[in-house]
């Protein structure tokens, strides 16, 4: 089981995996992740007014 926590920095959250997990996405092959804590950073793009997060 995995739990996602919001971080204090913008665009950053933390994934806690109690056991091995599988990250699935329609745009690439599944990624196997071992048990552990992961820092998940949302990729951003530059905008003249404000940065925008990449929709993935």
């Amino acid at each position, binding site marked *: 089981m995995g739990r996602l926590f919001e971080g204090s920095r913008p665009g950053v959250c933390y994934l806690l995996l109690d056991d091995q997990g599988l990250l699935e996405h329609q745009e690439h092959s599944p990624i196997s992740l071992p048990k552990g804590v992961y820092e998940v*950073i949302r990729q951003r793009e530059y905008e003249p007014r404000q940065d925008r997060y990449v929709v993935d």
Partner: protein
Amino acid sequence: MRRIVPALYSALGFQPPDSVITFDSPREGALAADSTAAGLTSKLHAIREKIKRHVRRRVCSSVRAKVRDEARDCVHQELRQQVRHQLRDQIQAHLLSELPHLFFNLGDAAFGLHDAPWLASCDFFSRIGIEGLSPALPWMELARAGAGWWWPFGSVAIVTSAPSVLERDPENRLHCERGPALAYPDGWAIWAIHGVRVPKRLVTNPRSLSVEEIVHEPDLAIRRAMLERLGYERFVRKAGLKPVHADRFGRLYRLDPHWTEPIALVEVLNGTPEPNGSRRRYFLCVPPTVRTAHEAVAWTFHLGPKEYQPDVES
């Protein structure tokens, strides 16, 4: 509307209007209000400001005593950001671009649905027991009935409809890549990409955009939307750009028009292969201050190049 508007006038101590006239869009309403103002001796009632002053006094004094300023401000701020900044301000800006002579007229409008932020906060505070907010109740009913912008004159009230189309991105900004982001029953519409009002052609025919048009666009936010709609890869190819820097993280492209902010794009390979084994190439728009592909990619992850040293990418 024809029942609610007179009740609102009465609740505030005004004589109800002789007639309530409805229009399909803020544009039609603004034009009608302008004509009406020119032909009437009675002024627009400052209904909106009167009710807001009364309610604000009640809410501020009562809520401060019970809930504290932080909770009240938090409610206002959240609702204001969601509704006012994206809807009311965008509609106002679009109207002014089409009808600049109505500048003063627009300032007198009551906003109906777009007063939803503070109306919703009144409703919330009323439900938790704050008393004395009854003047706002008919207004809430008007907003619930779907009234858009409206102009309360002495003898006539001009009321417009709520939008028939409203599309937003995940960050709640006006956005639609298939049609107008905001549209009214009479066809008046706003085209927008991620909160930026854009010409209709950007949405309906982006491939017709030329490199010259994009580079010469003075509004950087619209230029950014043009780049995205045309496609970064197509733009790089059309402009004949060559990488200014390349490393294991990607390739950095740059176009420097001199008269305005440069355009910088970084081309990267997706860290994870596709199911067929190939790796997807994609571009990201980055600040024009970056000098290397490594620095550009690091920036997209909120990091500097020294911090961005991945062992494995996926």
